[in-house]
C-alpha cells in the first residue's frame, strides 16, 4: 500500500509536468491546427531563461542590492521567464508560422522542427556543452508520512501546475479573448471573417503556450536540476502525444492526458519489469486510441488538410 501511495505521489509530480507542457502544446494545436514541434525546445529555452533570471536575482540579492527571500525569487523568476519566453514564442510564430498560415500544415511542422534545432544548437554555441545546475530556489524538505515520502517541491509543483491549468481554463472560458480562441478552434475559415483578428489571436496563442512551457521548464529545473540543450526533445514529442490524446480543443483533456501519460509511465514501471516500460506504456496509449480515436475529450471532426 505504501508503495502504491508513494507511486501515486510520484506520478502526480511527473504527470503535472506533462500536463503543463501538453496544455501549451494543445493550445497551439487546437486553435491553429499546427504541430508545434518547436515546443519542446521552447520548454528548454524557458528553463534556461529561468536559470538566467534566477541566477541574476540571487546575485542581486546576495550583493545586497535588494534583499529577496527565496520564495519571492522563485515567483519573480517564474513571472519574468514566462513573459520573456512568451516573446520568444510570439517571435517564432511571426517568423516561422505566420508566413505558412495557408500552407500545408506539415510545412509548418517542419519549420517548427528546424526552429527547434536552431534553439538547441544556438544554446550549445552560446553556453557550451557544459550541463547547468538549476539554482536550488526551494530547499527540499522531506516529510515522512508513514513510509510515504513527500517533499515540499512535489507539493509546490503539483499546486503550481494545477493552478496554471485552472487559470488557463478560466481564461479560455470566461474572457472575450478566450472566446475568440474557442471560435477559431471551432472554425478556422469563417471566424476571421467575423472580425476576429487572426494574427493577434495566433500571437497570443503562442505567447500563452510558450509561457506555460517556460513555467514547466522552471518547475522542471526545481525538481530535476540538471539542464542540457537537448532535454526538450523528448518532452516535445511526449507533449505532442498528450495533446492529441487529450482531444482537440480541450484544455482539461490535455491536462488529463498529461497526467495519464505520467501515471502510465510510473505505474507500468511499478507493476511490470521496468525494462519493458516504454513498450507497455505506448501499447496502452495505442489501445486507448483504438477505443477513443478522437482522444479523451475530443469531438469527431474532419481535418481539411490544406494541400
Amino acid at each position: 500500500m505504501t508503495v502504491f501511495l508513494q507511486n501515486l505521489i510520484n506520478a502526480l509530480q511527473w504527470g503535472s509536468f506533462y500536463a503543463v507542457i501538453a496544455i501549451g502544446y494543445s493550445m497551439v494545436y487546437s486553435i491553429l491546427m499546427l504541430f508545434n514541434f518547436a515546443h519542446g525546445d521552447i520548454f528548454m529555452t524557458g528553463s534556461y531563461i529561468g536559470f538566467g533570471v534566477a541566477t541574476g536575482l540571487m546575485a542581486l540579492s546576495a550583493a545586497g542590492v535588494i534583499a529577496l527571500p527565496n520564495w519571492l525569487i522563485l515567483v519573480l523568476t517564474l513571472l519574468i521567464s514566462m513573459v520573456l519566453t512568451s516573446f520568444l514564442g510570439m517571435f517564432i510564430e511571426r517568423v516561422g508560422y505566420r508566413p505558412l498560415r495557408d500552407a500545408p500544415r506539415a510545412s509548418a511542422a517542419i519549420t517548427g522542427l528546424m526552429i527547434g534545432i536552431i534553439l538547441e544548437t544556438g544554446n550549445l554555441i552560446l553556453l557550451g556543452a557544459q550541463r547547468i545546475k538549476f539554482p536550488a530556489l526551494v530547499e527540499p524538505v522531506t516529510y515522512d508520512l508513514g513510509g510515504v515520502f513527500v517533499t515540499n517541491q512535489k507539493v509546490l509543483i503539483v499546486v503550481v501546475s494545477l493552478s496554471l491549468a485552472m487559470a488557463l481554463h478560466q481564461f479560455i472560458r470566461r474572457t472575450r479573448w478566450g472566446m475568440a480562441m474557442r471560435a477559431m478552434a471551432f472554425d478556422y475559415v469563417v471566424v476571421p471573417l467575423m472580425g476576429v483578428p487572426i494574427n493577434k489571436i495566433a500571437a497570443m496563442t503562442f505567447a500563452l503556450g510558450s509561457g506555460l512551457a517556460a513555467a514547466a521548464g522552471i518547475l522542471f529545473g526545481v525538481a530535476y536540476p540538471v539542464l542540457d540543450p537537448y532535454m526538450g526533445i523528448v518532452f516535445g514529442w511526449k507533449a505532442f502525444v498528450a495533446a492529441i490524446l487529450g482531444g482537440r480543443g480541450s484544455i482539461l483533456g490535455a491536462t488529463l492526458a498529461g497526467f495519464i501519460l505520467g501515471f502510465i509511465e510510473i505505474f507500468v514501471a511499478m507493476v511490470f519489469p521496468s525494462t519493458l516500460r516504454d513498450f507497455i506504456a505506448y501499447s496502452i496509449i495505442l489501445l486507448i486510441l483504438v477505443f477513443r480515436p478522437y482522444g479523451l475529450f475530443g469531438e469527431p471532426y474532419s481535418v481539411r488538410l490544406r494541400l
Partner: protein
Amino acid sequence: MKKVFVVSVLLLASLVMVTAAVAQKAVTLKIGINAEITGDIPKVGEATKFAAQMWLEDVNKAGGIEVGGKKYKVELAIEDNESKAESAAKAATKLITVDDVIAIVGPQASKQAVPAGEVCNNYKTPMITGWSTNPNTTKDRPYVFRACFLDDFQGPALSIFAKGEYKFTKAAVLYDVASDYPKGLAEFFKKDWEKKNGPGSVVAYESFTTKDTDFSSQLTKIINSGAEFLFTPQYYNEVPLIVQQAKQLGWKKPILGSDSWASDELVKLCGKDCNGFFFVSHYASAGAKGATKEFIDRYKSKFGYVPDDVAALTWDAIGLIGQAIKNAGTITGDVKKDREAVRKALANTKNFPGITGTISFPPGSGDPIKCANIVKINDKGEFEFYKTACP
C-alpha cells in the same frame, strides 16, 4: 571586356601562386579525431577535442614527433560524427581516404564506435577509442583498440569491493536499458554478485530509458526491496538526479557507481548529496600525483573545468598513438605502410604510463590490461583515491 580581362589576370595569378607553392611540401603526420561534437552528447565531443588539442600543442612545442631520428610535424583532422552511426562511418571513411590520417582517435560512444571500427579495420587504419566499452568494438578487429577497461572487469571489481568493504549481501541495480555501457556493466555486476551471494541476491534490478529524468517509480521499488546498497552505472549527468530523488524518497544507504561518474560536473550538479559515495574510476582527480596532476591542472587552467574521464581517456588514447608512431621505426611517407607500422607498434604497447593507469595490450587483443581505482567522494566534494583493484 574589362571583366573578362580582370578574371583572366586573376586566374593567371592564382596559377602562378600555385606552382610556386607546390615545391615546399614536407611529410606531416595527420591524426584523425572522430568525435560526438553535436547530437546527444556534445560534452563528450568537446572533451575529446580539447584533450586532443592540448596533446597537439605539447607535441608541436617539442617540434613534432621524433621517428627514427627525424622530427615530423603533427596535424589533427577533426570530424564531427553528430552522434549518428552512419555519420561516424562516413567521418571515418573521410578521414582515411580524404585526409590520409595515420590513425584515428574515437568515436567515443559505442553506437558510433562499432561501425567506425568496421570502416577502420577494412581500410587497415589503426583506431583507438577512449570510452567505448562494447566488446563488439574491438572484437576480431586487429586494427581497433581501446584505452578503457572493459565491463567484465569493472563489474566484478565493484562487487568484490562492496562485499569486502561492507559485508553486504543484498544489492539493487538501477541502469539505462537503452544504452549499452550501463546495461553491460549492470549485467556483469549482477552475474558476479549472484555468483558470490547466491541467486536472488540482487533484490532489485531496475531500468529506465536514455534521457529520462524521473526515476521515482524504480527507486520506490528499490527502496522497498530491502537492498543494502544501490549500484548505478550511470553517467554523471544522471547520477545527481538519481541520488537526489533517492534521498527524497527516504533512501539512506550507500550508492556505488562506475567510471562514468568521474567528472567534476558530478559534484557541481549533485551538491552535497553525493558526498561519501564510492565509484570505480580510471583516475582520481583529488590528490593526483605526477603526470595525472599536471594534466588536470593544465586542462583546468585552459578550459575552466576539471577534466572528466573522456578527456583523460582521450589523452591516453592519443598518447598511445603518439608513442606507437615513435616506436614505428621509420616514416616512409606511404601512408598505408605507416599505418601498418603504427598498428604493429600499438599492438605491442607494454606498460604505457597513462594518466588513467599503466596500459598494456595483450597479444592479439585491442583491450588493455589496466587497474581500476576505487574512489571516494569526500566531504569537500573531491574525488579521493581509496583503493586499487587489479584484474
